């Protein structure tokens, strides 16, 4: 990295008139960032110039403006937000500031599966277990509580899902093991329980009892949406959960799934965006605080109320 440092400074100082700088910050999922970098690299090949990878983002120093601007457009269409761009040499000072800051950032650590598994096995329960509270519709009072593992913030979607799976198993085993239970956040009596379940099986431990089958306030088991992929195993799990008194919900990592997947017989939990999904399921758990206004409708449990 150190060698690259001085290189980008030199390159920036030597940019000809009518050139362009584009900076794409390293935020959001890895996949989109990689495509954005490929677009910047294409602009560098077509128009001359180079792309510098910094810890906090990618910097295009393009010798011609048009390919750089096309890359900005393409990235905006792809990711929904435009990267910052400056005409050079006019914007040299601004670019220098942004790139220096990006250089100071720390690149996210690359996890191997084995290292991540070990990390998840030893992470103290208090560090990842969390209890979030939900109000119903237009109410402000907590009516439900969700026990789940907080995301680790890994930018690789698959690794994050794997970590969730391992942490989720630890939460479940702690729930059924009196010795470990002290490490969990205290559940509130009287609030409906929403519990995340792992993708595969329930793991070890006593079968979890829910409520009577017709109890509208019975606890909700959230299965990852990916569980739908194994049709037969999914049907069996749903049947046995329902028999044990659980309502079954699907946990979608992105609300776009609501528009694509037709499964209205389940409660849907998904991150709530600013705009209501085109196909709102009859029962929904809106994740994320503060909850946008559309979440105040009937049949929607939402976050964003005080402890």
């Amino acid at each position, binding site marked *: 990295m150190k060698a690259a440092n001085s290189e980008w400074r030199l390159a920036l100082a030597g940019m000809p008139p009518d050139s362009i700088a584009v900076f794409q910050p390293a935020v959001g*999922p*890895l*996949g*989109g960032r*990689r*495509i954005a970098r*490929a677009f910047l*690299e*294409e602009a560098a*090949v077509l128009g001359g110039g180079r792309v510098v990878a910094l810890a906090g983002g990618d910097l295009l120093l393009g010798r011609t403006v048009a390919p750089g601007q096309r890359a900005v457009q*393409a990235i905006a*269409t*792809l*990711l929904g937000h435009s990267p910052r761009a400056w005409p050079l040499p006019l914007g040299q000072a601004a670019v220098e500031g942004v790139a220096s800051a990006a250089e100071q950032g720390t690149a996210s650590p690359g996890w*191997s*599966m*084995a290292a991540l*598994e070990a990390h998840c096995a030893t992470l103290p329960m208090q560090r990842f277990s969390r209890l979030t509270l939900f109000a119903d519709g237009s109410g402000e009072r907590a009516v439900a509580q969700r026990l789940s593992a907080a995301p680790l913030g890994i930018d*690789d*979607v*698959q690794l994050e*899902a*794997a970590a969730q*799976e391992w942490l989720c198993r630890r939460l479940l085993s702690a729930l059924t093991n009196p010795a470990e239970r002290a490490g969990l956040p205290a559940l509130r009596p009287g609030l409906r329980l929403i519990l995340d379940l792992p993708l*595969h099986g329930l793991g070890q431990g006593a079968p979890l009892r829910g409520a009577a089958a017709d109890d509208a306030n019975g606890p909700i088991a959230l299965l*990852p*949406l*990916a569980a*739908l*992929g194994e*049709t037969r195993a999914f049907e069996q799990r749903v049947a046995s959960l329902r028999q044990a008194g659980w309502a079954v919900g699907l946990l*979608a*990592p*992105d609300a*776009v*799934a609501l*528009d*694509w*997947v*037709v*499964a209205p017989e389940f409660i849907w939990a998904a991150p709530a965006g600013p705009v209501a999904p085109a*196909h709102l399921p009859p029962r929904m758990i809106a994740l994320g605080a503060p909850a946008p206004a559309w979440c105040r409708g009937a049949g929607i449990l939402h976050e964003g109320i005080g402890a």
Partner: protein
Amino acid sequence: MNAAAEAWDGTAALRDAMALASLARDCVTSGVERRVLHVRLSLVPARLREARHQRLVREALAPLLRPTRARLYELPGGDLVALSPPPGEHLDETRRALSRLLPEIPIETLLPVLRLPAEAARLLTLVEASLGLDASMAEAPVAVASTLPPPTAGEVDAALRALNTANLASYLRRQGIWRLTSGTASPQPLWTELRPHLPDLAAALLPGRDLSANPALARHFRQAAERRMLAELAHPQEARAMGEACLPLSLASVTEVEFLRLDGLLGPKGRGGLLVAVSAVDLLADPGGYALLRRFALQRGWTLALDELDPSLLRLLPAARLDPAMLRLRFRPDMLAADAPSRTSLEAALPEDRDRVILTGADTPAAIAWGWQRGITRFMGRVLEARQP
């Protein structure tokens, strides 16, 4: 050569069967009457089915076919069906001649006569039986439980290092995707699917271990193999020679540097011929990532296909909602046994434009017939593969 010829004849017979089925339906709608002679050669013992016997049968049929406007259809399985307008004296004559040729089997059994349109349903049933569409062959595949232990994460890591230096060529599989309609003479190639053959690769790099026992590691291994394949394709010469290709990839592999390099090398024309197939299970695991790929594909001009759909997944992800540019539905024999409501719901989930559907796993004529009945004309499977030299 033999296998190729057989597969070819099978396809021709398939076409005859489909034509006969649609003719039976036409007779019902128009009320036109026909006499149908069913020559059940499939009942004839093998020793009497040599070429010279076949010739005798054809000669006996000739008086029926020549003077009237009768048509002869050959069904998969070897049965013949002749249709002739009423009153059908020629048909009776021919029937007696055929019966004299094969006196071992009673005439009612060997040579049933049907009337259209009254007995159209019976004719359709026998046509479907000849195609295997009566679900007589629908058996669920028996899963063999492996007794091998799963690999550890460390063993998989070591296997992945070995993969980086392994010669991948012998583990790559190519298979054609074809357009085959009941009206055209021969299948036309659309894409060539290219994928690493994972069972062989796993057997070579992880001997004595059952990779499928650990889904997370299996997925990791699969992606590593895909990236290796993409790395080999992402050279200017390879990319130029790729042609119309279908790459079945994990969702995550499409945003890896190897694919992005290939995407850049292909140029607009090469990308126009590329089909990238991502499994529906990957979509469920990462819907946001799938949405990103859709935008990416649109921007770059390659086609994103939703892959590995079965009837239940397709009903969950109906085309009317997702609107996929292309989808690949996997044929399984038990789809033949589906009852009317599940057939209807499956068809409702397909895109109206059936050119967006590829039926994979078309290993038997029944699969092609099943597809044709639903307007599907794009196939991948052993039935078509046998033709390739």
